[in-house]
């Protein structure tokens, strides 16, 4: 893992605090950094408080509360980027990106290409996957949509340290970045985070846990039930856990290196299994490792349904379902061998 460190002071932060710290550092580093979004100015400081204090410290010119206009928030960010700024647009819940898709897909993503390189639009769009208690319109995991759009980068951190380092990299990246957070982790996951500037590069996966039996590839909030599943299987199955951290660029080589040792791999994510990011990762692994893996690469994603409100309906992989999937993969017969005991 390459990390550019220029700060040694660290403190315990939640993910929300890490975002606030990243934005504060970015606003302090570069006058071209702007933040746009609904309710982001003080005193409210954002619905998740991720921008608390920033308008007071850096001014209402640069931390601008907007009307409820997702399309125009992103469009304004695109225009400001074309005007030389580095805007960060906050779009609260990821589902609301539907309102802004034209500006993201048709403008931010394509502007560099359509202009022959003359008009890049390096914006960051922050959005959050909500909690099922809000129902199906505030909780979708839509990262595949953006992975499917040339010109965009897609980042999904799992912890406070990566959140801050990746967000700073995203803000100063020369391409548009969709930065996806997860409400379920916002306050519950804490970790030591440098208080100053540091960067976690986009496109470098992180091996969170070494193991020799199975490679589990995941990202974002699903890192946590995946790690818990791996811990609970300790002594039974030795699971290596890889956190992709960014989906575009995709660090497939870290995944290939791991799976070529373990011979068995599974991808776990909170977006639907059908056409989810796991389909791409699995295909690339199969392309590179076909014939050397013991079994085909497995996937465990969300069910192909809207996110249900009832807590009794489990759409998204849980620790228990991940444990079951790992056991199933471990017990599966090797490719090409006929079942012994049937």
């Amino acid at each position, binding site marked *: 893992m390459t990390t550019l460190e220029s700060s040694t002071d660290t403190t315990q932060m939640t993910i929300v605090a890490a975002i606030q710290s990243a934005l504060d550092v970015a606003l302090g580093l570069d006058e071209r950094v702007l933040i746009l979004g609904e309710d982001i100015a003080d005193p409210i400081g954002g619905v998740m408080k991720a921008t608390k204090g920033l308008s007071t410290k850096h001014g209402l010119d*640069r931390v601008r509360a907007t009307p409820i206009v997702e399309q125009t928030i992103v469009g304004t960010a695109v*225009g*400001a980027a074309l005007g*030389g700024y580095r805007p960060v647009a906050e779009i609260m819940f990821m589902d609301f990106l539907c309102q802004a898709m034209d*500006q993201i897909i048709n403008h931010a993503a394509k502007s560099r*290409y359509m202009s*022959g390189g003359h008009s890049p639009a*390096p914006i960051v769009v922050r959005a959050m996957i909500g909690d099922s208690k809000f129902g199906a319109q505030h909780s979708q995991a839509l990262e595949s949509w953006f992975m499917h759009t040339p010109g965009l980068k897609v980042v999904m951190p799992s912890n406070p340290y990566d959140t801050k380092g990746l967000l700073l990299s995203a803000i100063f990246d020369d391409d548009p970045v969709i930065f996806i957070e997860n409400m379920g982790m916002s306050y519950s996951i804490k970790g030591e985070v440098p208080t100053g500037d540091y960067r976690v590069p986009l496109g470098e996966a992180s091996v969170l846990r070494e193991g020799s039996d199975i490679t589990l590839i995941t990202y974002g909030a699903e890192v946590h039930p995946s790690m818990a599943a791996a811990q609970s299987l300790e002594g039974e199955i030795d699971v290596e856990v890889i956190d992709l951290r960014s989906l575009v660029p995709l660090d497939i080589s870290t995944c290939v290196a791991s799976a070529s040792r373990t011979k068995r791999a599974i991808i776990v994510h909170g977006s639907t299994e059908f056409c989810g990011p796991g389909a791409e990762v699995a295909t690339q692994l199969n392309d590179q490792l076909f014939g050397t893996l013991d079994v085909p690469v497995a996937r465990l994603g969300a069910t192909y349904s809207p996110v249900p409100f009832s807590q009794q309906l489990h759409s998204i992989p849980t620790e228990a379902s991940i444990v079951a999937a790992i056991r199933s993969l471990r017990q599966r017969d090797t490719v090409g061998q006929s079942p012994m005991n049937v």
Partner: protein
Amino acid sequence: MTNTVPDRPALEWMYSTMLLAKMADERAALEARKGLLQAALYPVRGLEAVCAAMGVAMTDQDQMVSSYRNLGDALSRRIPLRTIIAEAYGRMGGTSKGKGGTMHLTDTERGLVATTGIVGAGMPIAVGLGLAAQLDKSNRAVVVTFGDGATSIGSAHESFNLAALWKLPVVFVCQNNQWGEHTPLAGYAANPNLAERTAAYGMAAEAVDGFDPMATLHTIGRALDRARAGDGPSFVECRSYRLTGHSGLSDYSYVPKEELAAALERDPAPTFRTWLEQNGHVDSATLQNIEHAAEATVDEAFAFAQESPHPSQDELLLDVYASPEGVPTR
């Protein structure tokens, strides 16, 4: 800007620009009909006066966001016709190396920052450019052009409100050609007085005869003055008429004949020529020289475009990202 007639070089430039727009438009349609130009074309016939007026009213520092109906807008930014036409042919000599096409002309050095093929989508981008101009404490203004059809879409209304709220130096130039694609204005707007409707957003809104280059110049000029003075955005409804179909080769038999005939009576370039000559602003010999020069420029632009090389396969994956490192290639 005062309501005076600009100096002679400016008047000559306006006439030349109107002619270039008209002639290049007609030539492109001809080449398309012959099958030699494979490009979506959105003719600007009827908007020549508006484009010439913008070209004189705006400064070199000002920025523009245009739409797919952009030939005249691009000429107003003084983008060489040859690079516009080469882009239509998809060649390396084009504004975007042939990778953008007719709907995506861009020339940042000349202030044409973005051109969108999505109706109404340029307005939020202009708001962002206006915000950048305001934060820079610059004297720069941003003009965004769009048709009357674009005034129906949500992004327009969001942008009017936000630009007015933040008092941004943006001029919304509505090139009202009376048709939203193939539907007349009165068929899609309960209040077809677009300037009146937009005034409700709390910004200056004026309507002007878009066939009259002087009146249009002065109206856009006032809007730019307000933008530079910190008085916020303006909406300028330039009332024109579409003298062709919606797109290059599309049917426009549905356009009422008497309306079209009346509009053609006021065809901007020839009408301006008569005005220039009759009022003694430009003499006949000079006008003829301008006409010959425009013809030569159009010929040269099409020849340049047709001879310009196609992009090589290397271009396919260039400019997708700032750097191709680590990103997918298929």
